[in-house]
């Protein structure tokens, strides 16, 4: 059974002047148990809508979304129990401390403070997060530290499917490396399946078993990084292109254009 399976999922949004924007156009993909699948795409390509559809925050117009064989549209509560999400924005109560936010997040998943506290200590120790800083308001922590707490919060509910929506965007290089290392540890230690949306080519190449390229709501290709490179190689006999070159060949976007600020669909 696949951890995640999407079959021809479609989603359109009506904008103010009656204009219809197709955010997802017949998207099909699957994530195997314990697999890390990356989705590369420029801003506005539909990555965030894809994550919102899987996390039951947006209802698809058509198609099927299954998490471990359970239909996410007709049984959202069952699916919500088995997954968690970390997005580019740190969704925290900024005045509350990391510990208070973590305890609150755990309770929403039915985990009591007594059950959560030892887990929190263990996770914080593993990521090298000083215990005394856990009592400081979130707004006093750096973006990198906030993202680590976001990952810790997700891990606390023991999800079998993790949705990571640009978890390292906007982080300084050091924090980015720390968060990426944390994702690697989650993968190794917790047997979670992970869908990682990013526009960081290096991150996708280093962390993912398979990488998909998404543009204008469509997934152009989804395979192992090496296979992807071969598919878009301009000179099949020459040295393999980098993932950046592959991305440019597939989408027509440069890395800078892909990560430029814009409306994310």
């Amino acid at each position, binding site marked *: 059974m696949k951890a995640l399976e999407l079959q021809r999922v479609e989603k359109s949004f009506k904008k103010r002047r009656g204009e219809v924007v197709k955010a997802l156009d017949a998207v099909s993909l699957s994530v195997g148990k314990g697999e890390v699948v990356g989705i590369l795409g420029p801003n506005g390509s539909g990555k965030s809508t894809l994550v919102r559809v899987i996390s039951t925050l947006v209802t698809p117009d058509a198609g099927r979304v299954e998490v471990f064989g359970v239909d996410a549209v007709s049984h959202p509560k069952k699916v919500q129990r088995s997954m968690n999400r970390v997005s580019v924005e740190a969704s925290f109560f900024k005045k509350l401390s990391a510990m208070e936010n973590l305890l609150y997040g755990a309770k929403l998943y039915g*985990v009591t403070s007594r059950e959560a506290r030892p887990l929190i200590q263990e996770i914080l120790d593993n990521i090298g997060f000083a215990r005394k800083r856990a009592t400081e308001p979130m707004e006093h922590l750096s973006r990198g530290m906030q993202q680590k707490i976001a990952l810790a919060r997700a891990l606390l509910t023991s999800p079998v499917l993790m949705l990571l929506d640009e978890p390292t965007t906007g982080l300084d290089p050091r924090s980015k490396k720390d968060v990426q290392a944390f994702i690697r540890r989650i993968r190794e230690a917790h047997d979670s399946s992970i869908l990682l949306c990013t526009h960081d080519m290096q991150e996708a190449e280093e962390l993912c078993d398979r990488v998909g390229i998404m543009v204008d709501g469509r997934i152009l290709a989804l395979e192992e990084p090496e296979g992807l490179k071969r598919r878009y190689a301009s000179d099949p006999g020459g040295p393999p292109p980098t993932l950046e070159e592959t991305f440019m060949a597939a989408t027509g976007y440069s890395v800078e254009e892909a990560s430029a600020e814009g409306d994310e669909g």
Partner: protein
Amino acid sequence: MHNAPNKPLWLSEMVAVWGYVQRNYFLTKRYLMWEVVWLVYVTINAMAITFIGAGVEAVGGTVDTRFLMTYLLVGALLWNYLSMLFDVLSETVSWERWEGTIEYTFMSPSSRVTHLLGMGLYAVVYGIVQTAITLGVCYLLFDLDLAAANYAGALLVLAVCSVSLVGFGIVAAVLPLLSPEKGQQVSYIVSSVLLLVSGVYYEVDVLPGWMQAIATVSPVTYALQGTRAALLDGAGLSALWESIWPLLIMGVVFVPLGIFVFHLGERYAKKTGKLKRSG
């Protein structure tokens, strides 16, 4: 490794209710200075309204000043409590959106009933503490007409009214889901209409007929009638029943209606993509 599924569903939901209550308590602690400022404002506001009763006599009115001051104070305190309850519930969505936590909360497996129950429970406890402090200060300052007061009866009316007002607040909470930009403003209009028609500082009888018609569907109207009857006239349970039964009906209607409407609003927001943190 997964913790929650080992528990029965009802227990997980109870843990989540406590999560909402505890989170709001943590937030109250963090914003303590604001809470103190608000408490001072509410208390001074109640005192100023009570002094209107003394002022009527000073400008030549012939009224029972003690009675009028107590009448106004009860109105001020009750409105403070009930409007706070309504605001907390109706701001459930816009508050989460402002904090940036709306998506995290709405993708969690705890049910919406649990979410709204947790919000309502904390608002009731918080409101009772705040109102008790304000009442205590005013009790020391004013010579109130509470000799015949039936406090237990007043609390009963308040408890029944709290339930129906939670339902009323849940209906209003759906507005920011339908329109992230204007929804909350509409709920403020609902709140101000309740203040106007429910007889907070005057009898409903003095209002034009069409306003009196609106007053009949406001739980605040019956809460005020019942509480004033209990505190000012010492009315017993049989006399209070006149105010309690409409509140019971409203509770039975508004709470399920509110949850149903909220469910429809959430479904619409998920279809149109309006559940985003930025709206």
